[in-house]
């Protein structure tokens, strides 16, 4: 009962935040509102007991994307241009997509149902086997690091490659800018 009330209040705040963000034209305020939106969705995920997903949402949504969007604002304009087309077509697309997604949830098992496919599959056997096969107290860690070890290794390699690539690109850009600045200075001194 209390959790239902909490969910209602949080969803109400989420919807009002979304509407306010959609109606605002000052982009800095929109960035602030999107940060609040992520914090609210993180709170909703915490009430759903998905603490790890909630933390990812807060770190990526409220932390990194706010910083990235502010960096974008620093490079571009701070106010929204008035759009030239009618908002009717995007609205229809969004409503149809949302209706399709809600229709898709009708087949899903209830929240926390014991007979959902996730509970009936291999989960029980992993719960049984992992303590004596692997010896890690946390079953999720055991699955990630041992049963799915090669998969996790591949994921880590992909993330590392992406990070190294971004760092290389940024450092190359910086070095080029510095060189151009020095050339400008020399040209200014010579003229």
């Amino acid at each position, binding site marked *: 009962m209390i959790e239902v009330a909490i969910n209602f209040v949080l969803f109400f705040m989420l919807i009002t935040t979304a509407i306010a963000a959609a109606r605002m034209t000052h982009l800095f305020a929109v960035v602030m509102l999107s940060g*609040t939106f992520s914090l609210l969705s993180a709170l909703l995920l915490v009430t759903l007991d998905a603490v790890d997903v909630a933390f990812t949402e807060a770190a990526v949504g409220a932390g990194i994307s706010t910083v990235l969007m502010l960096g974008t604002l620093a490079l571009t304009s701070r106010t929204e241009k008035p759009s030239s087309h009618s908002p009717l077509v995007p609205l229809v697309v969004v409503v149809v997509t949302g209706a399709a997604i809600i229709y898709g949830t009708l087949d899903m098992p209830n929240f926390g149902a014991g007979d959902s496919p996730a509970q009936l599959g291999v989960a029980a056997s992993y719960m049984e086997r992992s303590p004596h096969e692997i010896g890690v107290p946390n079953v999720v860690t055991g699955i990630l690091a041992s049963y799915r070890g090669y998969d996790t290794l591949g994921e880590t390699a992909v993330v590392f490659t992406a990070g190294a690539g971004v760092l290389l690109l940024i450092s190359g850009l910086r070095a080029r800018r510095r060189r151009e600045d020095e050339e400008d200075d020399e040209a200014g001194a010579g003229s």
Partner: protein
Amino acid sequence: MFVVAALALFLAMVLVLVRLYAGPTLYDRVLAVNSFGTHTVLFIGVLGFLTGRPDFLDIALLYAMINFVGTIAILKYFRYRAIGDISQIPGDQGAGQ
């Protein structure tokens, strides 16, 4: 008792959201987002005790850290009009002094 605390937190959140929507200045909004982050931390704590499982208190601490770093980034944007690479901005020499 924790129900009362949760209700009071919701009331505080609504007040902060009103300030966030209405503005009027950008600093009001920055302060509102920062304050809302603090309310998130508090609400995670209250929710843990409300459901009888206060295991997530350490995660609330992490939220406090994210909130702090985010606010620093926003204020840095206000000060320098850029997030990274400050030395490249012309006419900004010695702005930190």
